[in-house]
């Protein structure tokens, strides 16, 4: 990471063209996407009936379109209301300079994250977590341990804290500065109890503003660069702000590997699935230039149900993952975002579809899972994370056409329920808290769905 490059970015945030956020969201970005889609002949090419793309020519076209958008718009800094713009050479250099290898953790739990290509036989790294889900304070260690106990899981992340030493978590306050460190201590304790003290993590997950992150990353005993990736998420694609840039500055000071990420929305500012794909690719390029990330998330959600397991979202994610993995040597990762809850077969179907699509498309790391779209506190468990990690490893080497057929077979089993999904059960309801094993009911659902996957040709990596 280069402090000099980051200083240049900060300078651009103070000297770039002035722009109001409303103009940016409602006019500049949408109109530019519309123009680019038209000029590149990409309007209406989304093929929901074949949700995993197999056309390399289309990947080329989308990558060119995404790069063109990054070059023509740049990224808006909300704090200064100025656009951070880059030249073509600056963007290309930023992509070239991203690391293509990251080693984290220690001992038998050390992981190496490397680029993959579509249909690559190398298994992706699995980062599992109740991602973005709020958990009761006394259940943080148990749920992290319940996930870390499965060796198929490579990296673990804490859920968000509901309380901190019994106090309600209030973002943007000194409480947050304190709980940033606390989260790191809880994750460390969970991996120790799981017998995996060298297991890597990410942090600070419970950091809605920069405070939790500044307090937690680098604090003694908490997250540090030897075992933890520093999380820094954009407020939305193609926009940044000082809160995010503080996190980047802090990571540079610590020499920490940075995760950058965002969600582009189908139906949102970027418009149709094709527009969302172009927007997500532009965001991948611009994140490299603005934040110097080590691992890069650039995923697409569907605004109709706020998940990424429907046809259009899977298609859009498949094409962007293919472009990001084929056209760069960066470390792109994907997040699975479900809408149904634990102890339902729908959660596993959703998980399987997006995982299979992304792994066959060349993702180098999959992060999951987000049962109920993060709506209900404590609604996550170890088992869906085990399942996600197993499907990810099992999908290595799958051809995109095979993945497409598998997804096509699974989608009809749940897609009509995406807007009214089953809530399922909470962690204590579907887990034996003494043994951290799933209840027989949840275990039976897991086995049933795995059997269905095996019948469709996906082999469980180990029994």
């Amino acid at each position, binding site marked *: 990471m280069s402090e000099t490059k980051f200083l240049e970015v900060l300078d651009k945030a103070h000297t770039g063209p002035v722009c109001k956020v409303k103009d940016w*969201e409602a006019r500049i970005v949408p109109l530019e996407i519309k123009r680019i889609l038209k000029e590149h002949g990409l309007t209406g090419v989304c093929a929901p009936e074949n949700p995993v793309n197999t056309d390399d020519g289309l990947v080329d076209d989308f990558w060119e379109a995404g790069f063109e958008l990054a070059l023509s718009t740049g990224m808006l800094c909300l704090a200064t209301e100025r656009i951070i713009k880059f030249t073509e050479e600056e963007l290309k250099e930023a992509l070239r300079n991203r690391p293509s290898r990251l080693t984290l953790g220690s001992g038998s739990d050390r992981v190496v994250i490397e680029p993959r290509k579509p249909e690559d036989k190398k298994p992706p790294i699995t980062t599992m977590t109740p991602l973005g889900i709020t958990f009761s304070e006394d259940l943080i260690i148990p749920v992290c341990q319940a996930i870390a106990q499965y060796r198929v899981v490579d990296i673990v992340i804490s859920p968000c804290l509901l309380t901190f030493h019994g106090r309600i978590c*209030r*973002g943007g306050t000194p409480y947050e500065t304190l709980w940033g460190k606390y989260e790191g201590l809880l994750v460390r304790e969970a991996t120790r109890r799981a017998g995996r003290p060298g297991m890597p993590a990410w942090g600070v997950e419970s950091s*809605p503003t920069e405070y939790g992150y500044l307090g937690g990353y680098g604090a003694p005993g908490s997250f540090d660069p030897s075992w933890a990736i520093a999380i820094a998420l954009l407020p939305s694609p193609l926009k940044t702000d000082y809160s995010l840039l503080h996190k980047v500055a802090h990571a540079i000071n610590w020499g920490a590997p940075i995760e950058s990420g965002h969600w582009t*929305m189908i139906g*949102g500012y970027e*418009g149709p699935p094709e527009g969302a794909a172009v927007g997500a690719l532009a965001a991948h390029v611009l994140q490299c230039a603005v934040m110097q990330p080590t691992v890069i998330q650039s995923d697409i959600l569907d605004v109709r149900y706020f998940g990424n397991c429907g046809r259009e979202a899977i298609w859009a994610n498949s094409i962007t993952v293919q472009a990001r993995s084929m056209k760069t040597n960066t470390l792109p990762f994907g997040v699975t975002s479900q809408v149904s809850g634990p102890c339902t077969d729908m959660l596993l179907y959703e998980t399987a579809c997006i995982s299979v699509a992304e792994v066959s498309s060349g993702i180098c790391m999959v992060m999951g899972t987000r049962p109920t779209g993060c709506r209900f506190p404590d609604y996550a468990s170890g088992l869906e994370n085990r399942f996600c990690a197993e499907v990810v490893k099992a999908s290595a080497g799958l051809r995109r056409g095979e993945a497409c057929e598998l997804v096509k077979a699974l989608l009809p089993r749940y897609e009509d329920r995406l807007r009214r999904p089953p*809530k399922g059960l909470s962690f204590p309801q579907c887990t034996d808290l003494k043994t951290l094993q799933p209840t027989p009911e949840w275990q039976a659902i897991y086995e049933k769905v795995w059997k269905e996957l095996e019948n469709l040709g996906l082999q469980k990596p180990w029994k």
Partner: protein
Amino acid sequence: MSSVTEKLKEAIRIGSEKDAREMAEKFVEQGGDPLAAISEVTVLMQEIGDKFSRFEIFLPEVILAADAVKEALAVLTAKIPEEKKREIRRGKVVIGTVFGDIHDIGKNLVATMLQVAGFEVVDLGADVPSGRFVDEAEKVKADIIAMSSLITPSMIYQKDVIDQLQDMGVRSRYRIMVGGAPVTPQWAERISADGWGKYAEDAVEVAKILMEGSREVSGLVARGAPGE
């Protein structure tokens, strides 16, 4: 007159605030009935909302159309007698994402759909301190305060706003709506909010019910997630 109305509607469709204002001005200059024009604009906005729900158009087009409507309505409603204004009034909503939370697409969706449905919307943006919701609602004499939160550590600020209104003795002046990914009906009930909706269109339905019921609605009005 009908050609001016058509041009006004076209200005709204393409999201031109300037043309919408000019056509509305021309309409009233030529002696047109502003109530008739508002009625046509309302039908058009319903069509635009329907197109968005079918993904025939997308959020930016709806936002621009809603802004153009705002311009046109400012001209048209100025020409309506006060008693008639009360009849057609949907209500005024102060909306924002609460403190510590910078996410805004969900809030923008709801704000836009409320505008489409004819509500007057004052959008405070994201990361809004609790006191600002209160100050702004008092200043513009809002009917509804709508608060969004996408992250749990910020949800508590929805309660802070309600507590502040309570402590100031002005809680009964407002209907409070809350929403956002982690915000459940149970949470809404716990903090004594009046309305909760799962999706943007649910929020509009809830706002309509809250306004129809005026101050007599009791208990939470929730739409969009039976059984949650």
